[in-house]
């Protein structure tokens, strides 16, 4: 059961980081500046983006459910308890972890909902908001809840800042890699400007910095 918990948490963190990171990249990396990318290229990216985000959101929800089952078994000391409704209820509504995880499951469900709502007018801002909540809520469980008072609060804020940095940096690598691959392919006819783009990781900020040279 410990292995199941470890694998579930790995998938959970990876999915939340990718879902948020892709959305954030869409905002800070591309925006709507046509000097950076043409409308056709942006449409191609958006098509890819929503497919990846939908898969990531589903993975986030499924792994969150697995974490819930594995944690229930871990806390109760029995693998059979993972599927016992009474014990699951005791965990979800009677423990500090469970009360946070209820919100986390809700955020994961909302993320899927936004992905499937293709006619939603504020779809992009909405996905950014729910993805951010999905990611940051991971900072409200685990070691972050140790301690009391101001120490606990600072610890939770610290965890959220680390998750935010990881989401922006690691999560942004996937769309960046997709764009770099697309730029090298024959699909450059979609309208990427003939510029050299560079990116690097800031040593101080754990955030990607990018720019372009004409």
């Amino acid at each position, binding site marked *: 059961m410990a292995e199941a918990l470890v694998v579930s948490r790995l998938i959970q963190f990876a999915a939340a980081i990718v879902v948020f990171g892709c959305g954030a990249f869409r905002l800070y990396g591309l925006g709507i500046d046509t000097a950076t990318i043409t409308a056709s290229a942006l449409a191609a990216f958006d098509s890819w983006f929503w497919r990846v985000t939908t898969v990531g959101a589903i993975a986030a929800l499924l792994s969150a459910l697995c974490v819930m089952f594995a944690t229930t078994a871990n806390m109760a*000391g029995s693998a059979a308890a993972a599927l016992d409704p009474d014990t699951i209820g005791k965990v979800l509504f009677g423990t*500090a972890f469970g009360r946070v995880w209820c919100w986390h499951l809700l955020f994961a469900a909302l993320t899927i909902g936004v992905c499937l709502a293709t006619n939603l007018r504020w779809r992009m801002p909405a996905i950014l908001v729910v993805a951010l909540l999905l990611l940051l809520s991971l900072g409200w469980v685990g070691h972050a809840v*140790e301690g009391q008072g101001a120490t606990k609060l600072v610890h939770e804020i610290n965890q959220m800042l680390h998750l935010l940095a990881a989401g922006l940096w690691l999560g942004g690598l996937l769309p960046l890699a997709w764009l770099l691959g697309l730029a090298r392919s024959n699909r450059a006819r979609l309208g990427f400007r003939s510029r050299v783009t560079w990116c690097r990781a800031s040593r101080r900020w754990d955030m990607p910095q990018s720019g372009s040279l004409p």
Partner: protein
Amino acid sequence: MCKIILALVTGVLGIGVAPSLGAHAFLDHASPAVGSSVPAPPPLVTLWFTQDLEPAFSGMTVTNAAGQRVDLGNAQIAQGSPAELQIGLKQLAPGTYLVSWHVVSVDTHPTEGTFTFEIKP
């Protein structure tokens, strides 16, 4: 200058509040103390842990040398002290008693342990 200060603050936040090594709830101290000899039967056993506990998954039992339970079955987290577990005891005769505890900390990690104490007038 501002960037240096901000980098230092970030470093302090990152290092100063790094996750503690005590991620599990370990027994910090107990009353009666672990392995102690007390002159009179205590009315209850109290355990203090290193982390706050989850009441729904934390408990303890006290048994005599014959393995019979001598507690009142009312193990609970002390009011206002989420890292403190208590259980009431029946009137105990002189002898050696075994305390067995199992707890889950608020970060979901379970721990368990045992210790003995003696009543010796």
